């Protein structure tokens, strides 16, 4: 059992490969989380224009990406676009897919946050002479973000986990590297190691979320 799943020789041999994957997973997360947040912020700001002609298409946009599996979106970009003469490479496809997919999720969360700030706050801010944009940036958004912080954190956790999809389009992140090491060594140890790394990296976030969620319900 230990020879199969926790083989020390194989851990030693595959460690550099897996470590390179971990570095890429961290870098990829540092790229796609801000990208998704940026996309979400655009959607949420557009939705704060209380106009049905704007809100309905946005709702359709968000629902579209909630219904569409991220892997299908990724494959569509990676394998479909070359037929239109556009070859983007795995990394760019992951970036675009995450911008669209996680942007929709972040957008929905931020929109709920903005909606949770009472209208009186905007009126008060405007009456002190702040412009609409200033009121949004300095008064509404800080409160909105605080109100939905657990949801934002929970979505960020999902985004980091989702970077593992990069392995399907040959982005050398943690899972991809582990599978490479597994196929070289004919031993599942590298995948077990990758799983343990994911767990150790994300467990603190899960614990924190658990506490935040319980406090939100009982507090």
């Amino acid at each position: 059992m230990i020879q199969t799943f926790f083989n020390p020789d194989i851990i030693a041999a595959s460690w550099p490969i897996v470590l390179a994957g971990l570095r890429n997973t961290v870098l990829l997360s540092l790229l796609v989380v801000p990208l998704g947040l940026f996309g979400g912020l655009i959607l949420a700001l557009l939705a704060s224009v209380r106009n049905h002609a704007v809100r309905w298409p946005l709702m359709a946009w968000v629902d579209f990406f909630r219904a569409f599996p991220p892997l299908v979106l990724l494959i569509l970009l990676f394998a479909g676009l070359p037929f239109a003469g556009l070859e983007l490479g795995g990394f760019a496809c992951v970036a675009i897919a995450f911008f669209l997919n996680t942007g929709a999720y972040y957008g929905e969360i931020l929109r709920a946050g903005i909606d949770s700030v009472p209208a009186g706050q905007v009126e008060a801010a405007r009456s002190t002479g702040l412009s609409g944009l200033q009121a949004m940036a300095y008064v509404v958004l800080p409160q909105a973000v605080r109100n939905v912080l657990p949801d934002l954190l929970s979505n960020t956790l999902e985004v980091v986990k989702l970077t593992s999809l990069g392995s399907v389009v040959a982005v050398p992140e943690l899972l991809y590297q582990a599978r490479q090491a597994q196929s070289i060594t004919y031993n599942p140890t590298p995948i077990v190691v990758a799983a343990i790394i994911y767990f150790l990296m994300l467990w603190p976030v899960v614990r924190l979320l658990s506490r935040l969620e319980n406090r939100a319900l009982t507090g």
Partner: protein
Amino acid sequence: MTGSAWKRFTETFFNTKVMLTYLPDILSGVVVTIELALLIVVTGIAAGLALALLRSLAIRPINWLIIFIVDMFRSLPPLVVIVLIYFGLPSVNISPSGFVSTWLSLAFVLMAFSEEIFWAGITSVAKGQWEAARSTGLSFGQTLVNVVLPQAFRLTIPPLTNRTIAITKGTALGTVVAVTEILGQASSAMSNSYNPSPLMMGAAAYLVLFLPVVVAARFIETRFAWKR
């Protein structure tokens, strides 16, 4: 766009002949996706509810174990779990098929998330409710079923539907371990025909399956929203 460019575009991405040829494949993929999704939802949520109820018995070592399992499946990417089961278990002479690997993995993940949601729902019901119910002569089980769970469910429905959709969409991950669901069928049809039309059909099939669920979830969310 000029007429010929448009024609070339539709012939590439919406080629009628290719679509008709591979329609049966995509449809069989739809059936597999639905089977897989239903299995995941039923077993995952049932297991999650069972764990939450077990946790309410407040037996320390069991609760620690439950929390550990839940945390584990919340921190591991679903694709990692699938790969681990599919490529790892054969080394100890258990060889689950891609279908079984995907089903088990996503059911475990849904179990973890739904346990957390059910548990949050149960703990949110005020302690006074328990005490009041017990003092009227209801047993522990009766209190749970008739007093606590109905209140807890109302709170759990919006987050539960969201999670369930997000995890069920993950059936597409089965492609990686050769499950012949929609994406798998569409991908192989694409490489056989050297034309992306099957992929467009597959994408459309996902929308047809999941868009109504998402819209229904949005309705449920507003309908069951807990006014605070």
